[in-house]
């Protein structure tokens, strides 16, 4: 078996609010093989986004290590490309200029970076929209621009934080198809953070289920659905079985989260 593309070792992240200290993520460890898609799923408040920010290098002050191909990384790293949950395209740039952004930062000449940007625009299925501005696109198209922009930096690991959370169910499935197609084509190692079970099963090779606060690894489920895959798998019995299995893992955690929220509201 090849060496992991990404290793997360014993990550612990605590936040202090006055005298109170909350452990958001507690001794989380896992690895992702090259070309693999790992989905991290958990209820709201389980520390998924904290973990995303730790791995992406956007927050520090944590215990444990993040390794890319065996090398410890601290802070944002060129090997890790991030796609955010919130709309993150630059509204003042055209689609191709958005996608060319990391190449511009890397000092690639304008002609060359636009040529490469157009390749990625085409890869995410937006050929013909190169000169459009984000305001002229739908939410799903804008998220594809954000994915293309991250891919244009040629990261070893694609880190996505609930990239389709703001989209409707149908668009979400179709964009899932697009991600599967890109993943198939680029053999891109991907770490997907999500709270959507169907999305996790549709896209991932393995699903890591997290506990509610503090976020710990509850179980890692292998998704043995065949590849190449598409949203058509959602109609199969096996897909339903995986969804049910993960939901049974998540149910207690989600209930705990809900009770915790309610007790906070009562107290507050």
């Amino acid at each position, binding site marked *: 078996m090849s060496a992991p593309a990404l290793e997360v070792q014993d990550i612990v992240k605590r936040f202090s609010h006055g005298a109170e200290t909350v452990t958001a993520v507690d001794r989380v460890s896992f690895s992702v093989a090259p070309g693999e898609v790992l989905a991290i799923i958990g209820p709201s408040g389980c520390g998924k986004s904290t973990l995303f920010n730790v791995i992406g290098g956007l927050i520090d002050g944590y215990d444990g290590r993040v390794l890319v191909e065996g090398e410890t990384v601290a802070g944002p790293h060129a090997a890790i490309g991030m796609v955010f949950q919130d709309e993150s395209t*630059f509204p003042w740039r055209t689609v191709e200029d958005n996608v060319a952004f990391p190449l511009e*930062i890397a000092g690639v000449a304008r002609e060359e970076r636009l040529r490469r940007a157009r390749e990625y625009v085409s890869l995410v299925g937006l050929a013909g929209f190169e000169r459009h501005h984000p305001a002229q696109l739908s939410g799903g198209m804008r998220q594809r621009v954000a994915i293309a922009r991250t891919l244009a*930096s040629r990261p070893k690991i694609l880190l996505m934080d609930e990239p389709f959370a703001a989209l409707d169910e149908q668009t979400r499935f179709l964009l899932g198809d697009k991600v599967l197609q890109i993943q198939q084509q680029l053999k891109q190692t991907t770490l997907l953070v999500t709270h959507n079970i169907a999305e996790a099963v549709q896209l991932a090779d393995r699903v890591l289920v997290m506990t509610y606060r503090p976020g710990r690894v509850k179980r890692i489920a292998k998704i043995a659905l065949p590849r190449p895959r598409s949203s058509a798998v959602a109609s199969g019995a096996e897909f339903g079985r995986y969804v049910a299995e993960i939901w049974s893992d998540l149910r207690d955690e989600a209930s705990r989260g809900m009770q915790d929220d309610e007790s906070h509201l009562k107290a507050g």
Partner: protein
Amino acid sequence: MSESRASAFTPIAAGLATVAGVLALVEAMIHAGWINRFVVPLPSAVLASFGRVIAEENVLWRTLYTGMEALAAGVMAALVGGAIGALLTRRRVLRLATETWVAAIAAAPIVLIYPLFLVVFGRNASTIVMIGFVAGLPPVILKTVEGLSGTRRVLIDVGRSFKLTTVQEFWKIRFPAALPTIFVGFRLGIMFALINIVGVEYLINFGGLGQLVNELAERYDLPAMYAAIFFVVLVSVVFFLVTERVERWLASR
């Protein structure tokens, strides 16, 4: 004419028609004796005075003079106000200490301190430009702070994920994201500057259109005075259109 061109001209035509309608109404009210013609001249008399104002009062040169003063004040306000705004965004304590004062200055009648400026700079264009500059500064500062500090967190995170330096983050993300808000401040600043410039020209009887308005008012030539005021409005419209173009150009960089 294509449908899109026709629809582009519709608002302009509707605007001109509204102005013409209001002027016709004022004309009718003056003729009917509802408005005193010695206070408000007939719009037709104002229109008729344009040729005289252009030929005899050198109004085009005066328009250019006032326009250049406003441009100088506006550019200075944009550069200095933008820099101060950027500094206040980065230094929170400084911002908290000064923001209320800057807002208070924005509401103050700056034009009334012209005697001080006369003492410092003399009765010349420097006094006029400096008062315009001081008047134009607060909106530029306030809107620059608002724009730069209002950049969405996720855009900053995108920059961080691509390992941008602080300078790159400012020029590639914070500044373009803030540009629409900064330009609102710049437009307000240049309008504040223009109002104060014309006001000081009027008060010290020096310079371009303000001085002309003063002289025509002294002569009680009301139609010509209103014609001169039209040129003040024209300067304002030109600045609005030019800043809009500059904003679009900068946004596409």
